[in-house]
């Protein structure tokens, strides 16, 4: 399987280690990106607890919960795909990737329904915004920013996974390539970010 080895590496084991290492560092960077936004959310919530609780009740909790379940499952299928690739199991890898993509698409579809329902309810800040409380604007500003940034990460992740799946299907990329593991790590991060966003956006306003 020398096909997976690239410059400047002299051993596949080392190269795999580097792919994982590089991805972890990149994930650290991604975490700081979302940390900045989550910090902004925390500060604003501390400043305006009443408005945030009020606004937090308006989000679509059913759709949000469904999406949480979908995304967690997709992490499972992605982990299966990465492990299968490492063990050189072509069929399992392709199945895992296919399911992951399907679940990712389902997540985005649900998200789309949720956004359009939000728009119908006039929950986009600006003229004719549904809630009177000024700070509800801020909650929904952060809601739109964070969910759309997360969706962009989903799209990016799906692009990478689809590309790897295509290459694996055509046999252009050996299954030992560390790229599968790196893509899986990234997918899990996108999942974890959602696990943080979910309670912030959907549950925070509903706590008794």
């Amino acid at each position, binding site marked *: 399987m020398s096909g997976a080895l690239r410059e400047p590496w002299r051993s596949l084991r080392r190269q795999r280690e580097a792919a994982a290492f590089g991805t972890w560092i990149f994930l650290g960077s991604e975490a700081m990106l979302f940390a900045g936004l989550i910090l902004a959310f925390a500060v604003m919530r501390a*400043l*305006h*607890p*009443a408005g945030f609780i009020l606004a937090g009740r308006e989000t679509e909790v059913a759709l949000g919960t469904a999406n949480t379940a979908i995304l967690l499952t997709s992490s499972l299928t992605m982990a299966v795909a990465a492990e299968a690739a490492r063990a050189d199991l072509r069929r399992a890898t392709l199945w895992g990737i296919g399911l992951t993509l399907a679940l990712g698409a389902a997540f985005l579809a649900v998200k789309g329904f949720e956004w359009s329902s939000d728009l119908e309810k006039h929950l986009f800040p600006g003229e004719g915004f549904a809630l009177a*409380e*000024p*700070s509800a604007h801020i909650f929904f500003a952060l809601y739109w920013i964070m969910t759309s940034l997360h969706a962009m990460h989903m799209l990016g992740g799906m692009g990478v996974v689809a590309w790897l799946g295509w290459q694996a299907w055509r046999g252009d990329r050996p299954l030992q390539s560390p790229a599968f593991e790196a893509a899986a790590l990234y997918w899990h991060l996108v999942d974890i970010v959602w696990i943080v966003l979910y309670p912030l956006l959907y549950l925070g306003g509903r706590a008794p």
Partner: protein
Amino acid sequence: MIQFWPATASDLAQRVDGLTGVLLAICGAILLLVGCLLLGFSIRYRRGSTAKRGALPEFISREVEVGWTAATLFLALFLFAWATGMELRANPPQPDAIEVHVLARQWMWKTRHSNGAQEIDALHVPRGEQVRLLMTSQDVIHSFFVPAFRAKQDVLPGRLTELRFTATQTGTYDLFCAEFCGTLHARMGGKVTVMEPEDFARWLAAQPRGDDLAREGAALFVSLGCAGCHGDRRGGSATVRAPRLEGVYNSPVPLSDGRVVTADEAYLRDSILQPKRDVVAGFPDVMPSFAGLVHEEEMQRLLAYLRSLKDAP
């Protein structure tokens, strides 16, 4: 004539200059030391010179390294303690300070004395008395900067900031906007005039004035309907659904969540704009927000009125 040092016209200015002088001496000494070592070593140990080479003497080793690390650290801590101590002691608020409201906007300064006298891009203050500026902005962030007082404070939209100083020298000094605020930022300046207290009193009395701030505030207090719940000075309302405001200014207020806060300007302002944030203990959470209904100049009048209630029975 070339100027090397700014005018010194406040008590703070003298202390800041003292600190600057000592820091200059310390830093000059360090710079001299580093410079002499650099040049000295460069000349003495230039290639081919006859200076002694060979093994390093015993004492230049790890101990020296630890030594100068510790020395620098102690110097840094000493400077921190001194500078911060000065900052914490600077200008403690005095009860009889002269209060002036400052409203900044692109690109002018509007100042208003408590008797209602207004100035544009100018401020007159008496010598030897503490002046307390209560500042806010209508648009972007500005910064009130008087170099001769060594005083500077950003002026923010949507929040009150405070600047205190005591002038010690009569004269006219530059006022600058120090925070970049758009096209004419460089022209957003003015003059601060320090006068002898008697002259200041005469000047102030001669100014055309509208109503004084507190009186205008009292009218607003009624017209906005505040008096309906809080009651007014004449004790109008029969059922008091909200706390009475006589003497509330600068006094401790217990909140419904158990905290106790001091009702300073910032608290009173927040309570008008975001009444749900800090509800006073024992009262229902019924007050509506006045955000968007009260603009900054009206807010200044209301606050002046609430302050004037301090001495009322």
